[in-house]
């Protein structure tokens, strides 16, 4: 299949937990809310399952950004595993920055099963942010050890 060259369309891989954020996505669907088609979701049982390897794999495979989403803090269906996901996210983000990947390409989103609207809105926002960043730049690995600003969105 061949297509005409077109402007940069980011590809975003999104990880959701089975109980909150995936259901939020389901809800967005059931309510026919519209959002950018750039995101492709992967369902995990819990955001605690999010292995940083998955994020590296997504970037290495050509994703321009990665979304990690789970239940709200204190709302985890596995008691407190989303806190563990949050800890990983904070450390992972620092590593990515040193690896030359802008902090804006990794986003953590808390979304409850009832928050389809917010889920959709956040995806649109994120897609635009990544579009603005442009394609992942492999040529210029970064070396700044500065602490990245945490971009934790609570939906």
């Amino acid at each position, binding site marked *: 299949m061949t297509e005409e060259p077109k402007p940069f369309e980011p590809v975003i891989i999104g990880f959701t937990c089975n109980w909150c954020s995936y259901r939020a996505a389901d809800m967005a669907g059931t309510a026919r809310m519209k959002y950018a088609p750039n995101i492709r979701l992967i369902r995990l049982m819990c955001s605690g399952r999010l*292995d*940083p*390897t998955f*994020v*590296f*794999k997504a*970037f*290495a*495979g*050509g994703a321009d950004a990665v979304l990690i989403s789970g239940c709200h*803090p204190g709302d985890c269906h596995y008691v*407190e595993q989303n*806190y*563990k996901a*949050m*800890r*990983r996210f*904070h*450390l*992972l983000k*620092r*590593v990515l920055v*040193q*690896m*030359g*990947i802008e902090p804006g390409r990794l986003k953590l989103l808390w979304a409850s099963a009832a928050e389809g609207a917010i889920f959709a809105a956040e995806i649109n926002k994120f897609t635009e942010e990544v579009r603005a960043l442009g394609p*992942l730049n*492999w*040529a*210029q*690995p*970064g*070396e700044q*050890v500065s*602490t990245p600003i*945490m971009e*934790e969105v609570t939906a």
Partner: protein
Amino acid sequence: MSKPKFAMYWAASCGGCEIAVLNIHEKILDVDAAFEVVFWPVAMDAKYKDVEAMADGEITLCLFNGGMRNDENEHIAHLLRKKSKIMVAFGSCACEGCIPGLANFSSIKEIVDTAFTTITTDNPENIRPQSSFAMPEGNITIPTLNPVLKTLGQTVDVDYFMPGCPPESHQIEAVVGLVIEALNGKAELPPKGATIGAGTTTVCDDCPRKRNLKTIKEFGRIQLMKADPELCLLEQGIPCNGPATRNGCNARCPTAGAQCIGCYGPAEGVVDYGARLISAFASVIDSNKPEEIDKILDGLVDPAGQFYRFNLAGSLLRSSKYAQKG
């Protein structure tokens, strides 16, 4: 029939691997007995063109150490691959890039610029070395540096990986012994692509230190504390890479009171070494408050450098087809 042929070569490496091989001391004679050493710059005389003259696959065993820093490294890697039956990525540099792989944090321009603008460098015309330079007498050339340092596996097809910086002498003895046995039909060679001369789990398995549940409120620096010589270093907040690093060294560094720096690379089947450490270190953090988590993480002053100290060139991210273009 003639003896099987042996070759050992260094690309961008420090020579420590050669020393490690020499350090098997009298056992080196076994190698000499079992093999005809046809190419080994450190130990004997042989010409590059002799290798070129060989038939493909004529060399039975080639231990290749060093990473791919310049075009010459790559050229000879391809040559030796062609000429060798068993190509072993020998040592951390060949397996995963090792310390020189940290260069992949920077662009090659940044690297050269830094080297030629140090405080003692007297460089008024701001000269940079040229791969080909016209002197009054004529052109003289030097190799071109690669945009990124690559591992051997990213450059040619590798049969076995032997990790370590350098590989421990007792492991080298064992591997050489195994190959000799295999050649005499007394033993089976491991499946292609296997990691040899090392364990399958991690350094903690061999570490003598006591360990309990790990909950860290603060990461420490080894020089800034009196570490308990009996207790797991990570539990004391010292950033030890042992939990994620393949065993095979008998936990040398932790045994000597120093944190494991990860020279044996990832454990069996692990896709990305650094990712394992990110998970592990995040897992021991004892807090659910974002601000506090960040405060604790500030104690790890160089996470990427620590988690990918030996593995940056071989990391999942840097192995990406996009990253390889540099």
